[in-house]
């Protein structure tokens, strides 16, 4: 397959990055078993990079993905345990060290252009290249709802390999054919004699055997764990306070750090009174940072009080007049006259619009959003000479390792990253800013462990935000009311570019990027003339990956506008969509199921309304129906959300349902309240009263139905969020006749 110019640009950019990072490639002759063996304690023996077994038969699974609430530790362990045939009660999970063997290949493959066959299930040259590149980069990260898709083959394989080695070891010990030895629940039984040996008895002898090349994997019909609602391994500790998050890390003699940094985007430290701070209670050191200062003290409260009291001046980086008003104006200018990338161009929409006709035109807008993880941002670091240790709730240990090595000027091998539980991630914890700051601070107190903790205000004002965006639509209907031509131009900042430039400031990355147009350019509806463009806008506001990324706004835009077309055509919004999905039976099945579960055809009482939305993201199909009531004060209450999900094979159904429930609430908080605004270059919001969240008192009823078809495995962590806003906005139109084209709803006085 010839490589498109687009793919060439992409791969060159990423490969350039790999070289700049100084990659640690997976060496062909390397025994990856040793990677996990190095972490062994109490007589544990590694059978491969994913499995350690001790003499009692306890199996420890290496989890190279972050547990941030999505239940991935349990799901990864299930993949291994299924093929290992071990008693689930003897399985535990451990954070994996950083190594190319744990690279997340799927995370990079997601960046392939929409038209790459990989997204349609083919093993393309682009996919192979991205897999290789992930290893080059040692790209051990958690994001893009990729963990299970990436782990499905290697972690089941790891379980099957280990099982094969244990069976072989037993057969050798008994001097019998391996075929006569049966493994179940961590015990191997010789069929003839009934003799037994446990995995604990056999681990050491098994570890010296060669792993098989392609061990046979179970048939799905024989699964004992996969597909079952297995209780999560991390939940008990999360009810007793024992679970250790980043903020809970403690070492002997540990110091604490708090910061006082420039409030204006891109601001820097001008001057401060260091002497005044030195005399404050508990203060050990004051460290100048590029953006402000850090105070190191014997407790965080002492550090925080001193940092807050600092007499300090900042430069505004030239952004002191930046405001939300100016930003939205710039976005609109870019819609009108910006230089777009075209992501989809079927038929000839431009030609259609050259002829006079009845056009439907609409403009939509969404604001910046903060991640607002419940656990405030933190990182603990210790620097001793060339050696760095980092304890951090993070989504990208390979990145933290690289950034730390760059600051300390040491090899990546000299940096150890320990990933704790994450008190929420949502994309924020893929960012390296906390690791960089913590390492700089730790360098100022060599040999000491320092825990850097940001306040809630630091977090909300120094996030890497979901980009604000505007979207313009123009459509024309045919004589049956179906969309004949559809033009969509989106304008906003591009998260991948912003993210990459935070790591490599020389990167230009003026090239197409799925994360800006995903959810619009790849929509499934049959429209003969369809053009989708995105105008990348440059602004000093740092933007990043926020749960569901581009889908978070494009689903709202496209599925709301589709509703507008149905209304214009005088047709039912569900049946209107149905008629455009003849080529996609899988989408259709999900849409039909949600309509049926929601009793779509039953009329609603006056003052109530329902709306529908269908959206594919991260390889999964999700449809939602929202039901709203208009309250006496004309505000809206979301009563119920009915959701149908086709994510292909389900590993742990209860976790999947929980993720969808949570993602709906995440989308709802954003739709109702989420609005990060800027005045004089600084973020106006500082804490939860200014950036409100859904709480128990305004929770809708949520019903989740899993409808797995034969589709390949899709993602789950993010996919429930995108359809919520359009389903809700469409329900509001149904109830009130008022079309919401701007979020949050609180702006329009629709939230009580």
């Amino acid at each position, binding site marked *: 397959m010839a490589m498109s110019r687009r793919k060439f640009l992409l791969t060159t950019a990423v490969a350039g990055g790999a070289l700049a990072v100084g990659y640690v490639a997976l060496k062909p002759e390397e025994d990856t078993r040793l990677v996990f063996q190095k972490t062994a304690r109490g007589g544990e023996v590694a059978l491969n990079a994913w499995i350690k077994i001790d003499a009692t038969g306890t199996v420890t699974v290496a989890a190279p993905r972050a547990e941030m609430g999505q239940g991935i530790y349990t799901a990864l362990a299930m993949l291994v345990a299924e093929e290992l045939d071990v008693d689930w009660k003897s399985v535990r999970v451990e954070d994996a060290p950083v190594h190319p063997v744990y690279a997340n290949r799927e995370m990079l493959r997601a960046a392939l252009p929409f038209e790459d066959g990989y997204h349609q299930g083919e093993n393309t040259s682009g996919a192979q290249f991205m897999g290789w590149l992930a290893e080059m980069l040692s790209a051990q990260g958690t994001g893009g709802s990729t963990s299970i898709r990436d782990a499905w083959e290697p972690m089941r394989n790891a379980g099957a390999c280990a099982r094969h080695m244990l069976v072989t070891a037993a057969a050798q010990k008994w001097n019998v054919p391996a075929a006569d030895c049966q493994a179940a629940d961590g015990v191997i039984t010789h069929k003839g004699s009934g003799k037994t040996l446990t995995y604990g008895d056999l681990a050491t002898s098994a570890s010296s055997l060669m792993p098989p090349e392609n061990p046979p994997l179970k048939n799905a019909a024989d699964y004992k764990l996969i597909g079952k609602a297995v209780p999560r391994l991390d939940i008990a500790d999360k*009810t007793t*306070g024992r679970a250790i998050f980043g903020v809970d890390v403690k070492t002997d003699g540990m110091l604490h750090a708090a910061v006082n940094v420039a409030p204006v985007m891109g601001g820097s430290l001008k001057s401060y009174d260091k002497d005044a701070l030195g005399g404050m209670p508990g203060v050990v050191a004051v460290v100048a940072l590029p953006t402000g200062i850090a105070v190191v003290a014997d407790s*965080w409260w002492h550090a925080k009080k001193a940092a807050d009291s600092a007499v300090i001046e900042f430069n505004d980086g030239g952004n002191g007049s930046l405001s939300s008003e100016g930003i939205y104006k710039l976005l609109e200018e870019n819609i009108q006259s910006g230089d777009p990338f075209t992501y989809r161009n079927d038929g000839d929409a431009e030609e259609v619009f050259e002829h006079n006709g009845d056009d439907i035109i609409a403009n939509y807008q969404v604001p910046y959003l903060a991640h607002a993880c419940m*656990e405030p941002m933190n990182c603990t670091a210790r620097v001793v000479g060339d050696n760095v240790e980092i304890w951090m709730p993070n989504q990208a240990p390979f990145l933290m390792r690289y950034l730390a090595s760059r600051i300390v000027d040491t090899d990546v091998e000299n940096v150890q990253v320990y990933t704790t539980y994450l008190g929420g*991630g949502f994309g924020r914890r893929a960012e390296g800013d906390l690791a960089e700051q913590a390492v700089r601070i730790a360098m100022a107190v060599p040999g000491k462990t320092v825990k850097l903790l940001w306040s809630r205000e630091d977090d909300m004002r120094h996030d890497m935000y979901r980009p604000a965006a505007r979207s313009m639509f123009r459509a024309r209907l045919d004589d049956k009311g179906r969309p004949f031509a559809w033009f969509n131009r989106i304008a906003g900042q591009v998260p991948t570019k912003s993210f990459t430039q935070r790591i490599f400031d020389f990167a230009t990355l003026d090239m197409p990027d799925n994360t800006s147009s995903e959810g619009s350019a790849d929509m499934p509806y049959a429209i003969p003339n369809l053009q989708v463009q995105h105008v990348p806008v440059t602004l000093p506001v740092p933007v990043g990956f926020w749960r569901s990324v581009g889908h978070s706004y494009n689903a709202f835009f496209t599925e709301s506008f589709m509703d507008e077309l149905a209304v214009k055509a005088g047709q039912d919004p569900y049946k209107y969509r149905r008629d455009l999905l003849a080529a996609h039976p899988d989408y259709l099945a999900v849409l039909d199921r949600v309509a049926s579960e929601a009793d779509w055809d039953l009329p609603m009482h006056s003052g109530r309304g329902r709306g529908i939305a269908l959206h594919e993201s991260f390889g999964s199909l999700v449809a939602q129906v929202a039901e709203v009531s208009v309250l006496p004060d004309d505000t809206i209450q979301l009563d119920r959300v009915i959701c149908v999900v086709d994510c292909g094979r389900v590993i742990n159904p209860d976790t999947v349902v929980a993720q969808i429930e949570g993602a709906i609430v995440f989308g709802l908080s954003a739709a109702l309240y989420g609005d990060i605004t800027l005045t004089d270059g600084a973020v106006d919001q500082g804490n939860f009263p200014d950036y409100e*969240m859904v709480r128990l008192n305004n929770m809708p009823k949520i019903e989740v139905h899993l409808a797995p078809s034969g589709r390949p495995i899709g993602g789950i962590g993010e996919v429930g969020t995108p359809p919520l806003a359009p389903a809700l906005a469409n329900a509001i139109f149904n109830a009130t006749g008022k079309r919401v084209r701007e979020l949050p709803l609180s702006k329009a006085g629709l939230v009580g």
Partner: protein
Amino acid sequence: MPAIKVNGEVRVIDIEDDTPLLWVLRDTLGLVGTKFGCGISACGACTVHVNGEPVRSCSTTIADVAGKEISTIESLEQAELHPVQQAWIDHQVPQCGYCQSGMIMATTALLAEKPDPTDDDIDAAITNICRCGTYARIRKAIHAAAKTMREG
């Protein structure tokens, strides 16, 4: 130097009077089950009991609680898990888990006062934030724990 009783044990704390109870618990006493979320009583992650009442420890100073009895999440589990903890496990409530110590402490305080709370009682009493959105399961778990506790 204020003396406080934490989880049944008298502790004399040598610290400035304006230090929030949260930081005494976490940094001085090493009881890290109680979490820092917002610092201004807005999220409830730091909820503990002071003389049996739910209190947001981030905005309560050590001077405010001198001589009082404080209970944290670490005190709930005795010979076995507290029924509220068990209900949280049975309903697989936590996702990231960060807010759940505060949720559970708010819930045990509610159930001490109202053994059979209505949904409205729950809405009024549990105003904590869960960013993962586990609220539906929290509600179910509260009703289940209440039932277990009533039936003894």
